[in-house]
């Protein structure tokens, strides 16, 4: 394994024998569903799996949630909170699991964080440099779903759109539906740029759960040499 950039002090990626698989995509893209199916499949074959995700770090998650509720964070501070959360997960969950030979399934990774930051005006080089601490995953699956479908799926889960997933803080529109469509298009555009640079597997998420999971399973089995 290797790091994207400077990496983490004291961590030699040579010792990390597990595999890191990332699933990226917007809210409603089907990440959780696909992760569950993949986990079942891999566990069925005798692999040990660990799930990690954004904002689940014990270090800053409470504070980050509080701050998001109160809209009291500056842009740079917000970005750094997420970066801290990520670094904490990377060092305290991902790396130990990889050292022990687990397969780590990551629900989102640095790409969502970078896209969110850049769409909000963050300096691209700054963001790239910070996330130089991240490990290069063995596989990145990007579930690309059209904004129109995303909206439907979000509404099916609950009858409102999330303020942040609609990019309402950006003032794209006074209307949350409108804002959501615009914001998701901006994020997808950013992902297209990131995809070329970071070599994602782009999966058409506009299909049935079964057909998506077949494609993912085939790719993962290829990776694991099954």
């Amino acid at each position: 394994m290797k790091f994207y950039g400077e990496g983490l002090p004291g961590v030699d990626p040579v010792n990390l024998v597990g595999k890191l698989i990332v699933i990226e995509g917007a809210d409603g893209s089907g990440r959780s569903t696909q992760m569950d199916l993949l986990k079942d499949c891999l566990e069925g074959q005798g692999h040990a799996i660990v799930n990690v995700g954004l904002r689940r770090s014990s270090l800053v998650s409470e504070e980050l949630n509080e701050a998001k509720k109160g809209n009291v964070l500056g842009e740079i501070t917000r970005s750094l909170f997420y970066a801290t959360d990520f670094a904490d997960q990377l060092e305290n969950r991902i790396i130990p699991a990889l050292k022990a030979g687990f397969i780590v399934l990551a629900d989102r990774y640095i790409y969502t964080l970078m896209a969110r930051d850049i769409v909000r005006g963050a300096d691209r080089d700054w963001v790239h440099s910070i996330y130089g601490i991240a490990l290069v995953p063995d596989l990145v699956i990007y579930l690309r779903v059209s904004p129109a479908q995303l909206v439907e799926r979000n509404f099916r889960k609950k009858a409102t759109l999330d303020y942040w997933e609609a990019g309402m803080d950006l003032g794209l529109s006074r209307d949350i539906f409108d804002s959501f469509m615009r914001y998701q298009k901006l994020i997808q555009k950013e992902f297209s740029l990131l995809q070329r640079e970071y070599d994602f597997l782009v999966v058409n998420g506009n299909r049935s759960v079964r057909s998506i999971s077949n494609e993912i399973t085939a790719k993962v089995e290829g990776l694991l040499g099954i």
Partner: protein
Amino acid sequence: MNTSISVELPGKLIAVEGLDGSGKSTQLYLLKRWLELRGLKVFFTEWNSSVIVKKATSKGKKRQLLTPTTFSLIHCTDFSDRYEQQILPLLKAGYLVLCDRYVYTAFARDAVRGCSRSWLRNLYGFARHPDITFFFDTPLDIALDRILSGRPQLKYHEAGMDLGLSAVPYESFSLFQKRIYDEYLAMKDEFSFVSLDGTVSIEEQQAKVREIVGLKLDLPLYRWKTIT
């Protein structure tokens, strides 16, 4: 980073750096008093004081959850909160902003913990450089004596215990401070520190500080504009 950090602002940023026990906080406080008593707009901020980040920092320190990288990032988050909400807006409003410790503290401490120096400089790339940075150059043994003579309880991270330099907190602290001191020396030209001799009397040091500030800045510009 972006070019806006070099744009001249109505206010001015003065930072003090140095080891714990170097006397920098005393000197900055006296500077603050002098400026305030002259009726100037002054704001003081110190390292590690953001309310939002405080909880996470103390949680992390208590449970020893912090690695060099997360330690660095969390302190950067604290700094950026103060920077975005206070330091920068006040500079735009024409204040004299006095910072007890600035990004150089992170450059020194985090590098001693193993973080890449270039990564650190990139991380803090959003922050303007001070108009004046005073470095209180106090010999290690004097600084240590001031801190340790009260036999205080040295906290884990404060003593650099995570570095494994020594199992004894006081020894660890000394070794840790020595390395930080070396980092400061290595960067003082890069960042144009104004070095001050921390061994002379408090009054002498303060006279020098006031002289330098008075020469560098046109102080009457920073008077209060509103009538109180």
